[in-house]
């Protein structure tokens, strides 16, 4: 019998402790073949920054907002909401799989506008997700399982670094369409339209709703209209990623314009929303995923399938952040304060853009830095080449991603001059 044989092996090889004997029967780890994974390109920047001892160091990597003192900013509407919530002495019972109802409703209204026909007819479903990443992943998983068209998802070139592995892990095939024009540091409108017009029917196309990450380059309304036409002609399924509503222009309705326009034009879109940046709720993981359907009946079927997808990943979402977001969105006073604070954050970034360009001119830079001001949102695609980025990091302790992207949120009036010096030094 196998069991008897085992005993013999153990007691032969073991010394005093059977445990040692057991360990000796297998020499290698299950994981000896596992490769060391590379550090995350974006989050890895922060790790490297932390290790740097230069007092002038700057972290322009991850897109987390900082105030003008370079400190994380907890919005006062968040603190007020937390106080209100604490006073209610709520229990901690599981949320439904689809999340907190007051949150998902408010989340959809924020994106679509409270009086949107889609919401009135009940022909959409919004589920609470683990911030933007979780939303994109659920969307990807949903498409991999249910999308009747090609499982090719088209990202703008370039796109947020994490889009590719998210959609790949969800089971989709990654493709791209032209988007950023490095020669102008602006939108390659012609290239985008050309590429989109060639995408096979029923493929999926990802559009950044506003404040494109990493380039900060957004289509103008007229350009969005043409994009919508081509997308319609090609019968593509639109997946909007809106991680910066409010952060782009400072105005939440203006930033949602493209999303609302597309819906008006008849696109039944998928939409991912994040409240990490615009409410500063980063670590609370607050997001939403919406699918606009043909009618309420279809929305119910789709909802049931989303739940089936979510349950084996994390069962149901975390309450804390969603409760804060819902309280802010649904309490008029807090909502007003929030809108002001979003406006303030967006304005500070706009100001830093202006100061950076002014600083570069002052240093004598002869390059055209207009794109720094034209670009929108948290990020700036400086146009710096990898070698220049490397120098900026090594010589000036300015940390950013290799693609030349800087998070303007990490720039303050105290260090914008130093940054201008550094950028000038590596580009002159």
């Amino acid at each position, binding site marked *: 019998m196998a069991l008897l044989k085992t005993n013999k092996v153990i007691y032969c090889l073991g010394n005093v402790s059977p*445990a040692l004997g057991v360990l000796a029967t297998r020499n290698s780890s299950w994981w000896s073949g596992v490769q060391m994974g590379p550090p995350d390109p974006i989050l890895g920047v922060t790790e490297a920054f932390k290790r740097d001892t230069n007092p002038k160091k700057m972290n322009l990597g991850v897109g987390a907002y900082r105030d003008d003192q370079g400190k994380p900013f907890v919005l006062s509407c968040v603190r007020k909401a937390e106080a209100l919530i*604490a006073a209610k002495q709520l*229990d901690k*019972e599981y949320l439904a799989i689809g999340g907190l109802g007051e949150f998902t409703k408010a989340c959809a209204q924020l994106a679509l506008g409270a009086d949107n026909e889609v919401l009135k007819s009940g022909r959409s479903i919004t589920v609470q997700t683990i911030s933007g990443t979780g939303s994109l992943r659920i969307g990807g998983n949903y498409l991999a399982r249910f*999308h009747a068209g090609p499982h090719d998802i088209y990202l703008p070139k370039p796109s947020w670094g994490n889009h590719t592995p998210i959609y790949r892990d969800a089971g989709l095939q990654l493709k791209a369409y032209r988007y950023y024009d490095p020669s102008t540091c602006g939108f390659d409108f012609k290239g985008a339209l050309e590429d989109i017009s060639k995408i096979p029917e029923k493929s999926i196309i990802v559009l950044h709703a506003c404040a494109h990450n990493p380039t900060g380059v957004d289509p103008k309304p007229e350009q969005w209209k043409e994009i919508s036409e081509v997308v319609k002609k090609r019968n593509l399924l639109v997946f909007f990623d809106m991680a910066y509503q409010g952060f782009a222009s400072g105005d939440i309705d203006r930033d949602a314009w493209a999303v609302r326009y597309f819906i008006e034009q008849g696109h039944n879109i998928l939409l991912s929303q994040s409240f990490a940046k615009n409410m500063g709720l980063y670590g609370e993981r607050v997001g939403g995923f919406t699918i606009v359907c043909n009618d309420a009946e279809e929305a119910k*079927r789709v909802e049931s399938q989303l*739940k089936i997808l979510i349950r084996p990943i994390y069962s149901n979402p975390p309450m804390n952040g969603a409760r804060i977001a819902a309280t802010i969105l649904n309490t008029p006073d807090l909502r007003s304060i929030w809108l002001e604070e979003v406006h303030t954050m967006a304005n500070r970034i706009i100001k830093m853009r202006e100061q950076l360009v002014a600083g570069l001119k002052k240093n004598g830079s002869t390059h055209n830095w207009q794109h720094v001001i034209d670009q929108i949102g948290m990020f700036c695609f400086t146009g710096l080449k990898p070698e220049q980025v490397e120098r900026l990091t090594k010589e000036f302790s300015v940390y950013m991603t290799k693609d030349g992207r800087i998070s303007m949120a990490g720039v303050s009036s105290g260090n914008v001059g130093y940054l201008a010096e550094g950028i000038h030094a590596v580009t002159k």
Partner: protein
Amino acid sequence: MSVFSEVPQAAPVAVFKLSQDFANDQFPNKVNLGVGAYRTDEGKPWVLPVVKKVEKIIVHDDRLNHEYLPILGLPEFRSSASKIALGDDSPAIQQDRVGAVQCLGGTGALKMGAEFLRRFYNGNNNTKTPVYVSAPTWENHNAVFSNAGFDDVRPYKYWNPEKRGLDLAGFLGDLENCPEHSIFVLHACAHNPTGTDPTQEQWKQIAEVMMVRKLFAFFDSAYQGFASGNLEKDAWAVRYFVSLGFEMFCAQSFSKNFGLYNERVGNLTIVARDADSLKKVLSQMEKIVRTTWSNPPSQGARIVAVTLNSAELFAEWKDNVKTMADRVLLMRAQLKAKLQALGTPGTWDHITDQIGMFSFTGLNTKQVEYMVKEKHIYLMASGRINMCGLTSKNIDYVAESIHQAVTQVQ
């Protein structure tokens, strides 16, 4: 023409549908013995006093904000949570071969472990490696592993309905005969749904076969502290396996023992052979986390970390856990006593032999239907009841109803 016109309506998740039906029921004496969440003797959810205390501490700490946690989670949480499972003085921890990933509840921890195993265990992307889950098991186990890409999720013999206990011979038989390197999902304690755990001697036999057959131990620990009221006792099986030198995973949930259900606090503890392997495993875990949720939610993990890292709060927590476990033990004792007093046919020892939140009553589907429809007592079709749903006020009604179900419905 909608791209989604062919999307079929999915069946609702049974346990949540049960709660919904209960909520909609107007019957004044209705009882919810479905979902596994603790209830006080007043039938109310219970936010642990220590949790309330810690939440106040957190809200008044100006140094805290809502910034992103690292991908793998809050370091103080991960290490203290692993210590809870493996013991403060665990040699494996001292040898730097224990790591952890903060996850969204126990489900999230199972998910991360499953995704990792599918990619890297028994070859690369070997979706054919069999994953064994107990018969019966928590219903979500199947979906977690199959959605992670495993093609072959199978049951291992566990519950013997005739003797209402562990089918050890069947279990060992499956361990002996399964393909080498199969993955086994083991319930660390308070087996869900049966409440039936192997004894220490039985665990020793299980471990021995698993070692010889080179099987992977993936523990699911959702009820540590809840089973016996004692953290160390409830972690015995996990620690025993570690002491034998297993490389293994342990998915921990703090939903029940901290009452933090909706904060989604979980931890995947990883025991590797050596520090080097561990580092590689964690680096790959980061990539899996990054495409699923990027980084985990901070609130719940912070509450647990603050509690576990303070001697005073830790003691208070253990006390709160014992309060919950003791109430469950009391309800078990009283339910059995009442059924025996009523002369309900059958033996009812299993109610007090079984451990943790749940009891597998042995009621058949017809009897369960009777309980739900006629008596407005909600329990799972399997006959599983949540002992926490019993209170001093409803226990007589439940006992009488069980009696009626057993005597009138076959």
